[in-house]
């Protein structure tokens, strides 16, 4: 690499050779450093508030007079329930053995458009047992769907206030 810094006509060429070795060294070090420190995995967040009644008897809770939309994720099905009116909808697993997340989404959409037009709260709980464990990924999937559900015509478009509850403290819990 050279730089012509004004050659005189008929005279000696005054091309200057720029030493690019330090530049390449610097670039190589910088590239290596940035490659090592780069975060390739995109980590995001789901914000939740712990909800529902706790099992701790010292923590006395006042009963809410409003209807609460509750989702209970079990190993083999999902329950969507409404407190006070005690209405429950069962979403069974698909024939391939996976949870029917599409059905959960459509059910939540229906509730959002009908009873929860101006509400943004919802409760989710996962009920796991030694015989039928529920994985954390299933709860995250349910929360993700709840946060995604949208009703464009409603005064409050989405469920922004998604809470995780203890299964025993869920506002609407199906009696099995």
């Amino acid at each position, binding site marked *: 690499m050279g730089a012509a810094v004004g050659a005189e006509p008929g005279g000696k060429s005054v091309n200057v050779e720029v030493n690019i070795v330090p530049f390449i060294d610097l670039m190589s070090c910088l590239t290596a450093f*940035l490659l090592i420190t780069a975060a390739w995995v995109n980590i995001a967040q789901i914000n939740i508030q*712990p909800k529902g009644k706790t099992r701790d008897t010292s923590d006395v809770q006042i009963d809410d007079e409003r209807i609460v939309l509750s989702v209970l994720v079990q190993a083999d099905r999902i329950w969507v329930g409404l407190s006070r009116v005690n209405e429950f909808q069962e979403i069974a697993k698909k024939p391939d053995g996976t949870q029917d997340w599409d059905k959960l989404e459509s059910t939540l959409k229906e509730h959002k458009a009908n009873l929860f037009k101006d509400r943004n709260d919802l409760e989710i709980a996962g009920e796991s047992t030694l015989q039928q464990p529920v994985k954390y990924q299933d709860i995250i999937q349910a929360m993700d769907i709840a946060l995604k559900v949208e009703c464009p015509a409603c005064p409050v478009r989405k469920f922004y206030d998604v809470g995780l509850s203890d299964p025993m403290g869920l506002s609407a819990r199906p009696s099995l």
Partner: protein
Amino acid sequence: MPVHPAGPRLFSSIKFKHLVRRSGSTSAAGTRASNISLNLTPFVDMMTILVAFLLMVFSSSKLLQVQAGLELPIAMAKGKLQDTEAVIIITKSEITFKGEMIATVDSVLRDESPTYRIERLFERLEAAARQIKIDVEMGKIPKELVTACDDLKNNKRPGPDQPLCPDGLAILQADLVTDVRVINKVVVTAKAAGFDNLLFAIKNK
């Protein structure tokens, strides 16, 4: 190891005349020059572009604590993970808080205490919550979080994409196969210790 006289070396004993001929450059004396000039321009171009790209994607913020073998659950939610001091990590085998091992997952699953809490975690979380509260009251928080903390004092909920006040805020990083019973116990414990806002760390699809 004994020292031997130097053996034959390239361009000294072994002339590589064919390479010198091909190089095409001649020395000032008229003889063929042995210097082979590499064209470094494409290399420098590529390096510059690569450095520019990496600088663009570089994040100077504190990186999330990485735990070996921890696989975060996958979700579509896009909210960027907010940084906070209280980080609870649940791997396949153990629960840690601020890098300190609290309990094993098996022991938590076996424990049938009526309070449904993890007592050791409760103690650590309560101390951390107290410290964070003092820091917030003394104004030891980034400027952009002051409004969020003022809103919290006035019981005003922040919007979906707004930053949250560190008071009562904790991050939960749990492995995707963790039993929900462990998550429930950690959430109950965190709530009892004063953490009313939990950020579940997830991986985007």
